[in-house]
């Protein structure tokens, strides 16, 4: 691959391209390494990691909806120790930056995990998940109150030597206020969007399909909301934005860049097609070539610039 036109630098990270799998949609990388070499990716973003192992919610945890899916995984993960001792060491053998998505229920928990990851030297960046809609008190309050968020980011930044991206929930009245709060707290970047809160009811059982009742809506259907939020936030903050939500093609990726994103994440599309990320990388590079664009900086935010 020679997608030189896709190189980006963001919060001190040098990425060969701006495309990375979204947290929770790529496990800890191992599963998709069977399909293609992970070093093709801009970075690998791993599943939300918490201090202690979490089983997550009862099943069913996933269901399809028109042009999307609902999930209520509930931050299932093997816990920080296992991640540090097994998953990250395996991933770190690949020539690709690692971003660890971190979740917690208290400021203290967040800080402990961030410190652990940061100190391990196994990752290149932290993504602070303050937006999981599927866990009671699972960080969601951090994701809806600007002051609470700003405080959390400040504390986390103190214990981290790695750049910290704050991943925002779209389920708020003002995404701009949340992004500004994260920036004020010292965030190195903003990731958005996490899932919209949704529900599906099974007409046969007459109950919500998901055991958790509500779940996070992701996939092609949410892209317009995501593009709007990136566009809005890009004009309100100066730190880089990682955009996501329904990216399925290279053109989708380019649309996020034009809205103001520096990099993009691909979530649900991996499930539809395990080769989604490499395909999107190729298509983005092709778009650049076809349109005589040498560098993503030349089109970043052009929709509002």
């Amino acid at each position, binding site marked *: 691959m020679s997608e030189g036109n896709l190189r980006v630098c963001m919060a001190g990270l040098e990425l060969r391209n701006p495309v990375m799998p979204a947290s929770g949609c790529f496990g800890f990388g191992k599963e998709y390494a069977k399909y293609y070499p992970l070093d093709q990716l801009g970075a690998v973003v791993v599943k939300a990691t918490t201090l202690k192992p979490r089983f*997550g919610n009862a099943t069913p*945890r996933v*269901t399809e909806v028109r042009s999307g899916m609902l999930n209520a995984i509930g931050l299932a993960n093997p816990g920080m120790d296992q991640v540090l001792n097994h998953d990250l060491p395996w991933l770190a053998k690949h020539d690709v930056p690692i971003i660890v998505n971190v979740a917690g229920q208290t400021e203290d928990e967040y800080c402990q995990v961030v410190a652990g990851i940061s100190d391990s030297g196994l990752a290149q960046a932290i993504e602070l998940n303050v937006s999981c809609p599927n866990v009671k008190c699972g960080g969601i309050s951090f994701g809806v109150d600007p002051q609470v968020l700003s405080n959390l980011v400040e504390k986390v930044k103190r214990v981290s030597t790695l750049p910290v991206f704050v991943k925002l929930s779209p389920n708020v009245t003002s995404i701009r206020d949340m992004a500004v709060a994260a920036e004020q707290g010292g965030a190195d970047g903003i990731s958005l969007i996490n899932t919209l809160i949704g529900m599906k009811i099974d007409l046969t059982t007459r109950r919500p399909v998901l055991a958790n009742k509500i779940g996070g809506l992701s996939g092609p259907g949410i892209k317009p909301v995501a593009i709007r939020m990136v566009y809005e936030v890009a004009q309100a903050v100066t730190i880089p934005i990682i955009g996501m939500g329904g990216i399925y093609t290279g053109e989708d990726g380019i649309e996020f860049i034009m809205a103001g994103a520096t990099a993009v994440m691909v979530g649900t599309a991996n499930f539809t097609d395990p080769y989604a990320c490499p395909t999107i990388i190729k298509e983005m590079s092709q778009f650049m070539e076809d349109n005589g664009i040498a560098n993503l900086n030349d089109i970043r935010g052009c929709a509002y610039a």
Partner: protein
Amino acid sequence: MIVRVDKIMHVSPDIWELSFVGSFPYEQVNAGQFVNIRIGTGYDHILRRPISIAAVDQENKRLTLVFRVVGDGTKWLSGRRVGDDLDILGPLGTGFPIVQGKSILIVGGGIGIPPLYQLASELNEKSNNIQMVLGFRHQADCFWLDRFNQLGEVTITTEDGSLGQAGYVTDTLGKMKATGKVWQYLYSCGPMAMLRAIREQFRGTSTQGYVSLEEKMACGVGACYGCVCSSENQQSAKRICIDGPVFPWQEVAL
């Protein structure tokens, strides 16, 4: 990978048999594994549908699925025609262990029965002694009985007694056990309630059991943690799509 539909037919009013040919690692298939099928080409159905491998024909490089139409995805699948392309991933998951020269009981229920055909074929080649109990709702739901009959001793049960023994498979198993018969291995696939009941029936016996589980899946490859079940002994989750769908029955909470 893209394969080509080679055969598609009804085997009962709402159950279909579909075969495909084309480049696929047929030789890697283990009984109990599944393929994950893309439904349509647009964005209406973004999650693949898992369907067990019912039979693989190594010689003719041909794979057969048997599925029940229960919703949009399986309906779409039933609408494929010979020559149509199909986008599939597989073989996925961990299948049944294939033992040699043992006495074996295979128990299947409803749409859990298809993968047991491939299982029985593989076990049959390894000089095992195979006994099968296959449960259906009605006579009309039965499929592939002739095929199964070639691989061992088959007992059919139907809930309404329209064919074979009346009642559930567990009723028949109870009677069989009462004769003092003992099996070294039991393989089973079917509704959760059936698997649970069977394990209860065999608790405390020397029979080593394997069950194949189902759960709604998103990725099918172990990446999303959507399809977990909990293990009996530890707190950690097992992913049905990659750690399973087949598990030793002592390892999972049913």
